[in-house]
């Protein structure tokens, strides 16, 4: 099992969720984050003070999936979250050793 963790633009969330549902992903967890990268931020001015704001609002999605699905999940996210403009985000994949569904105690594949 893996967790696919993706940082995407906030307004792409619904689309990505739909794409994942379409390929059989039943659950995911979403976090509001701020990203720093090549995408340039903006300047805010409050009276005399100017602030260069370099952290931009992003959405982090975490999806736990069986090994078989990983490739398709990555592809689905890449395809739907892409606008082609700087700041579209990243996908990272890492292994998990165990998954548990708290309600039932089921583990691993059954837990997802």
């Amino acid at each position, binding site marked *: 099992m893996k967790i696919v963790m993706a940082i995407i633009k906030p*307004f792409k969330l*619904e689309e990505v969720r739909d794409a994942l549902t379409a390929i059989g992903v039943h659950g995911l967890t979403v976090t509001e984050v701020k990203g720093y990268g090549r995408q340039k931020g*903006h*300047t*805010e*001015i*409050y009276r005399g003070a100017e602030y260069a704001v370099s952290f931009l609002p992003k959405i982090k999605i975490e999806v736990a999936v069986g090994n078989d699905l990983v490739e398709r999940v990555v592809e689905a996210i890449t395809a739907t979250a892409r606008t082609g403009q700087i700041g579209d985000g990243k996908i990272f994949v890492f292994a998990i050793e165990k998954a548990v569904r708290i309600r039932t105690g089921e583990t691993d594949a059954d837990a997802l």
Partner: protein
Amino acid sequence: MTFRTVLRAGSTGLALAALCAGAALAQTAAPEAPAAAAAALPNKGDTAWMLVSSLLVLFMTLPGLALFYGGLARSKNMLSVMSQITATAIVMCLIWVVYGYSLAFTSGGSLTSFVGSFSKAFLAGVSTDSTSDTFTKGVVIPEYVFICFQMTFAMITPALIVGGLVERMKFSALVLFVVLWGSFVYFPIAHMVWFSEGYLFTLGALDFAGGTVVHINAGIAALVGALVLGKRIGYGKELMTPHSLTMTFIGTAVLWVGWFGFNAGSNLEATAGAALAMINTFVATAGAGAGWLVIEWVVKGKPSLLGMLSGIVAGLVAVTPAAGLVGPMGAIVLGIVAGIVCFFFCTTVKNALGYDDSLDVFGVHGIGGIIGSIGTGIFVAPALGGVGVADYAMGAQVWKQFVAVVVAVLWSGVGSFILYKIVDVVIGLRVTSDQEREGLDIAEHGERAYNI
């Protein structure tokens, strides 16, 4: 404010007699309203009330309307809503004293059916000695207080339009549009309705506190604007939940409180007539809030706060032309009708037609204003508890109300359309789609409403 529309040109005395038989009777012999001496002097009670009424209408605009609208926007546009409302108020305040008051409240010579002149531009000739007439013979108020009171109406009316345009209109375009719209739509309509030589004034339609000039006028301009601008990106697809119904709630409450200045202040005197306008502004509002709440509860299954608040505003709008003219029971009925009809308009009708009048200015102010205007013609009937007008006949009166509505709709509709197009050519109406996605707060103002 527009009791004056009751008066027919050329029969002022008669109309005054009718009025005296109505709302204003209690005061006619008041010891502080001396039987019309050569130069009448203001009563301090009236002046105190009109000072208060003026500041209440400002309170409606800032922060009332800005919070009502802003809370309904997404948080990335909150600051832009507040900026647009504030700038509108400021700009109208300035052009009002420069030429607006003059265009609205002086004789316009051959054009006087439609607009005044520049004879009081820069408030020429106004001093602490000059006075304005009220609706009671021999009772005057200081002209400065009348100018202030009317100024606040000129400030809030274009601010109402903003609700139809939010989340996509350029700040600079809005400011230019407001200046043009104030000059070519608002001042003329105010003149037509409120100045004794104006076209709608002479028509004899009833409009106690500005249902036509303010609400129908702004509601139509917002609808036209929403159509010209087009829908917001993602409209109908993305979540566009109000970012803070807490702010919308505060705004609504402030609107209600301030509206007593708007409606009861339009009586121009601190009399039982003002108290009648006040009680109607209580009960019609409560009726409309209850009406929307109940109908939504029945139709959608849940009683919503936003529904109740929308009903409250619809009731306030509907009772505006009627405030000092109908009885409290008529006002309740008017309110309930407004609450229910506006509900269907903002839900079923708007969704069916598919335009993006973002914060329902047309659905609430336009439709509510029309209901109020027609309803005033009905509920002013003494048989229905109203104060009556001279030679009242329901059919005839409703017809006059209808004509006034049509004139306002056409003038505002056509005028606003032309002005939007002009601004589009000169500046461009809409921000880029990147800016719209990012939110107008950062994109246009370089600030954010919240950094929590």
